[in-house]
């Protein structure tokens, strides 16, 4: 196993550094966050703690990725 994979495993175990929102707050803000991202704006500055949560919570990250793909795909049409 290469060290980048070890880093990923340790990241899953120890989670993100710094403040993060919880799952409920993440869900509340996810739509705005995704639209800011797709508009090329600073979503992390507007909604602090959400990026860290997405790094630490696989389920919320999957839902973020899906929403971004769905809305981004529509905008591309």
């Amino acid at each position: 196993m290469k060290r980048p994979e070890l880093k990923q495993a340790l990241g899953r175990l120890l989670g993100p550094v710094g403040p993060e929102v919880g799952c409920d707050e993440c869900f509340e803000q996810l739509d705005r966050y995704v639209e800011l991202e797709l508009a090329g704006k600073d979503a992390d500055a507007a909604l602090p703690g959400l990026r860290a949560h997405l790094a630490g919570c696989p389920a919320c990250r999957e839902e973020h990725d899906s929403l971004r793909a769905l809305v981004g795909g529509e905008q591309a049409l």
Partner: protein
Amino acid sequence: MDASAQLPATAAADQDSREWLQGLRATGAEHEAAIERLHALLLRAARFEVARRRPTLPHLRGNELDEIALEAADDALMSVLAKLEDFRGASRFTTWVYKFALLEAAVKLRKRAWQGREVPLEPETWSLFASSGLAPEAELEQQELLGALQRAIVDVLTPHQRRVLVAIAINGVPIDVLADRLSTTRGALYKTLHDARQKLRRHLHETGLQLGSWLEEENR
């Protein structure tokens, strides 16, 4: 006068979103038509999620997947209607409702993928952490790190924190599935996971273990 203009919850909303809200708050045929359109929108989002996850669910047939998408759309419709007054126009209405359908579909699909499977609450393997092909010195360093981690998980965490951390972060159990099995919520479990991670980090720091060299290895 545009009726939707009187609604404070739509103050920041775009025109399309205001029309959605107006239709959903209407009565009679206009309301029914808006509900039908909303359900179609939610079903499209749920099917989108099903399609994304389909490769991970080879044992489910097409009609089963479509049933899951339909159930997700039905449940999302209920959630959206129950929370309609919470919409503040921070995003487009369609983006706001999509997240409900995606959540419902994702949760159902995760649960279906784990249906009938035991949820492992003890470490099944530490092989995820074990590197191969390292120089002897690096291998020794890695063994020390993994040993310290395993001891910390046993010594520092409460039994509940340990079960949650191991299940989610080591064994890859989806948080919704674990929440379901433990009769709790995703939010409550994530709080437990977060507290466990903080405790581990603090302990490892106090014992003098330098995590930075491992976690930042990729960026060197």
